[in-house]
């Protein structure tokens, strides 16, 4: 046992024989949310899953985005007055699956490895742990998605120089807007991961959330179900994502920045539910 100070130095007088009489030489300063964030950042950057999922997402967005633009340019296809930005959609939709995976793993891997017990022993405030995770994960995915989306948009506009010139609002929506939306989708996954505590289960649920509304809508031919079908299509995640690019499958439904509000609502409910459950549940 080697310790920085000798035991004699550290021993205090026992107080009425009740309190512990060991005092550590390490100073006690109150830990804050900032410390929890530093801790979560270390966790996120020190596992390989982060590099892999985000790396694959960047690669998908770049290759799919640039390749579609190149193909269209080679075929001289007319974009019927749409700006070239809309082509970013396909890459982002594929990339969103990576963000879902990482979002779920951020909390799910703690449960599968048992690390969660160590984490909550070190920081018993469930809200603080979840908030720190959410902040770190959101910031990272937001920055990476926004930067990649911007690079792709610039490349596409350069390749398809004949297409309509996008407005400032369109630029903002298809870069920062998409970044917010995808990072929000990741947060939703994080919330679901915290609720079901099982990585594979949570990823399956999230893929269902993304794809199922469209698949279900496909089979709703009856007139009575028309409104349900319409709702499912309009509020499906792929359709809301494409709304950020200014194109939707229907002419109604959320448009402009509205999909972000919908996502914000979903994230609030999922994270709120996760906090309530974490506070009540045994680990």
């Amino acid at each position: 046992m080697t310790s920085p100070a000798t035991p004699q130095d550290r021993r205090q007088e026992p107080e009425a024989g009740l309190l512990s009489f060991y005092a550590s030489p390490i100073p006690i300063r109150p830990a804050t949310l900032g410390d929890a964030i530093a801790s979560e950042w270390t966790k996120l950057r020190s596992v390989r899953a982060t590099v892999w999922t985000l790396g694959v997402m960047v690669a998908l967005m770049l290759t799919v985005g640039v390749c579609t633009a190149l193909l269209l340019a080679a075929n001289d296809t007319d974009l019927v007055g749409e700006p070239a930005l809309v082509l970013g959609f396909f890459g982002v939709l594929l990339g969103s699956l990576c963000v879902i995976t990482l979002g779920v793993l951020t909390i799910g891997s703690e449960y599968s490895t048992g690390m969660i017990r160590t984490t909550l022993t070190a920081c018993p405030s469930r809200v603080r742990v979840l908030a720190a995770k959410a902040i770190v994960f959101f910031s990272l995915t937001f920055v990476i998605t926004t930067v990649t989306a911007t690079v792709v948009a610039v490349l596409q506009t350069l390749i398809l120089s004949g297409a309509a010139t996008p407005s400032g609002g369109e630029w903002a929506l298809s870069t920062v807007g998409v970044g917010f939306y995808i990072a929000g989708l990741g947060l939703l996954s994080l919330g679901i991961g915290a609720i079901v505590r099982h990585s594979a289960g949570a990823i399956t649920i999230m893929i269902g959330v993304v794809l199922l509304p469209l698949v279900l809508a496909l089979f709703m031919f009856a007139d009575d179900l028309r409104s349900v079908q319409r709702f499912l299509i309009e509020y499906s995640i792929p359709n809301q994502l494409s709304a950020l690019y200014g194109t939707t499958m229907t002419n109604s439904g959320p448009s402009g920045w509205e999909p972000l509000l919908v996502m914000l609502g979903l994230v609030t409910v999922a994270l709120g539910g996760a906090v309530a459950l974490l506070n009540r549940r045994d680990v």
Partner: protein
Amino acid sequence: MIELEGLTKRFGSKVAVDHLSFQVRPGIVTGFLGPNGAGKSTTMRMMLDLDNPTSGTVRIDGKHYRDLQEPLKYIGALLDAKAMHGGRSAYNNLLCLAQSNRIPSSRVDEVLDMVGLSAVAKKKSKGFSLGMGQRLGIASALLGDPEILMFDEPVNGLDPEGIHWIRNLMKALASEGRTIFVSSHLMSEMALTADHLIVIGQGKLLADTSMADFIHENSRSYTRLRSPQYERLRDVLHQEGFTAVETAGGVLEIDGATTEELGELAARHQVVLHELSSQRASLEEAFMQMTAGSVEYHAHSERDPAAEPPAVGAGWGENWNKPGSNNTEGK
């Protein structure tokens, strides 16, 4: 100082922990003993606020665990060694814990050095052996240099060298004035490390006593006699009113007589003795008798070994491979 008050945990209709109240005092090693499934781990999880008690409270230095701002500086715990992310290096596993409690990162190197893992600090922890994992877990418990340390079955699966290391570590930590709370299902292990004992069975408190008292109360003392004049000795003892129990190998065991009495008796009757020794039944046996009624998972066999008194002196000690597990007359 840890205080438990009426701590109860129910899982459905099953009561895992039943109104436990005890205190863990500083400066000594307190052993927490019970057969498998007695509720030891559940109790420890409730102490760390990982499980919510059905009723009752736990206080750490007067505070509830959830109200501790930097819990690692008050209490360090080793619950299970594998509660780390295997894909992360040993250093990073400890670093993220240190950061959440504002412990300087230099302390991570310190504890890694303390447990002897400096050489593998940058290696992923999933490649660690059981012993290395246990050391990493102990490093995480020591990270905040806390005054209270909790170890759940720390010697499980360790080799003799590792067991020896943990035993000495716990003693050293206690001698610095810390509170050490360690669970085990091996009485023999506790007899070597603990100063105080808390025994539970089926979630109920069976004993809260000092180790010395436990030994005194629970170990049957008797005298062991061996003689080439076996028949003669037996007759002499019978005449003098001593009850001698015959055991294997021509050994006589006598309850309720001192070695002085028996030695003088043998001298008076000129009986040659090859052995005259005072013995104590193993603590393992005392522990098993105490918890016999509350063992959760019995192995059903024709002869239940726990129900019969073992062949004293031979029985339990030989298989434990550890020094001092049997007779503790040296204590």
